[in-house]
């Protein structure tokens, strides 16, 4: 059960993120929801590679060779880097939208429709 705890957390975080993306009307909150989903996916990847009692997969002065899988951590790192770029870009879009529209309400930021 304790080993399943990270996966339960993943589900909760992703559900919160989805809630924010579906029902929050502020564009910044939508970006926050996206970041939450991303954290959930990252946590999911890291938990996949965990081995019971394993240590970080680095050979310098390691006490034992029982190590967690390094590949999911590399994947997580890549995903974090991409996430930083995405979030920075989305937030700067928000800033430009606010400057031109004077609002961040998603019900008003819709000059493009049909």
């Amino acid at each position: 059960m304790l080993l399943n705890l990270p996966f339960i957390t993943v589900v909760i975080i992703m559900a919160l993120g989805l809630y924010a993306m579906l029902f929050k009307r502020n564009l910044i909150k939508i970006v926050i929801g996206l970041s939450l989903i991303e954290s959930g996916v990252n946590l999911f990847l890291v938990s996949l590679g965990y081995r019971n009692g394993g240590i970080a997969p680095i050979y310098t002065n390691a006490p034992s060779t029982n190590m967690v899988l390094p590949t999911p951590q590399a994947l997580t790192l890549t995903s974090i880097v991409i996430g930083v770029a995405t979030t920075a870009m989305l937030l700067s879009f928000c800033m430009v939208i606010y400057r031109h529209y004077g609002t961040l309400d998603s019900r008003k930021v819709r000059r493009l429709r049909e």
Partner: protein
Amino acid sequence: MSWDYFLNHSPALIIVIPLLAAFATPLIGRFSRKAMYIWITASLALTEIFSIILLYGVHTGGTMVYVMGANPYNLSVPPDSGGIPVRIILTVDSFGAFMAFTASTVALAGGIYSIACEHSQTGQEKYYALLLLMLVGMLGMVLTGDLFNFFVFLEINSLASAALVSYRIDKGVAVEAAFKYAIISSIGALAFLFGVGILYGEYDALNMAMIAQRMKFTDLDKIVMALFTVTLAMKAGAIPMHYWVPDGYGKAPGGISAMLVTASQASLYGVFRVSFTVFGLSANTLTLGWFLIILGVLSMFVGVTMALIQHDIKRLMAYHAISQTGYMLLGVGVGLATLGTAAFNQYGLAAMEGGIFHIINHAMYKGLLFLTAGAVIYRVGTSDLNKMGGLAHGMKYTTIFFMIGALSIAGIPPFNGFASKLLIYESVYQFNPLLSIIAMIVSILTLASFVKVFHSAFMGPKIYDVKEVPKSMLIGMCILTFFIILFGLFPNIAMTYLVGPAAKALANPLEYIARVLGGGA
């Protein structure tokens, strides 16, 4: 530095060249504008040449495997790895090479076109760096053999495209479009990554060939299948997840709209690759095939009816892009639904060929149409069709290019749209006559809606005193027109060297798997 060297290393070089060019562009642009234009054009042309080398290599030697950082370059399964492919593996089969050729051709046209079209804009060095990065994303998506790597290139592609959509701020409206596009593509990419994580947890592998071989098709795999197919169909712009398409295509600069078409098709490639190669051996392909067919028919019909009532020239064309994507989904979906039965050789393969042929045709003519729309906006300054009229008086070449594109998209012989549509109609008719009839009605409505554009923008009395657009924009349009007429008059060239091998490679995942897991021999 012999011919063999370039041939063997072409899968990596085709990605490296635009990547290097993208990173060097801001530095070169700081010194001289002119040198930067030459640099961009040269690197795009070199990419195009390498895509042709790639086509040649795949045509003569079959599926190519390239392992980054390995010694030798094609050692996908090292002797001490226990039969598991390691490192980033690029796997180029005929379908991948075909898509790479399409993407780099449209990028070449869009890049040359942009030189004049964006001449007076600021921040051009970033524009071209992003344009090249977008090309890198597309090429990486279609050439990689690794699911995680696919996700990385998908993100590179969508980030660069979103930034480019917002390039002309246009009182914030373009940024609104880019925001919507970035949000929807990021959440899609995260769903894709979640699926990759589930597959990794199940099968300890990220390589598509390895996963396909180990696939047991448990309940978890069904979740992954839904995540992958729905996400990539959304990125390809299938209805009812198409809302970002008119926004993004409609507000991007002209050259970028043309490239966004191929960016969507790279996602379409992902749908087909995942459903045929990864899940095709174990999943129930009938369900998966009908999913694609239903999405395709919906996209075709709703896309074209929405296009009929638009009055913004680029938004109208964006809805047509959705509608044409429907043809590809329909054709390949019929192939997938009949996979493994006797009907596949009877008409399923022909339907797939039609769908795949339509990919390259659509990239060329819709790219051309977006470039002409960009030319109209460049001269008139508005994209509203209600305010246009009589442009044919001043812009003769643009009018001719528009007519070629419009006749081609409507499937009028002898242009290239007719050949692929004919293949789709005939083979789908044998599968289910109703689908074929819908496809024909959609084609008629497409013609009707382009008659509307032609009438209201180019015909009528002279309202604007316009000149012809600059030469580089005409050259960009010329490149795409050349391929439209070539594939229109000689469809067998495309059929023999591009489309036929691509369809066969897609339908036969076992060869793909054997090539990767065979140690790269």
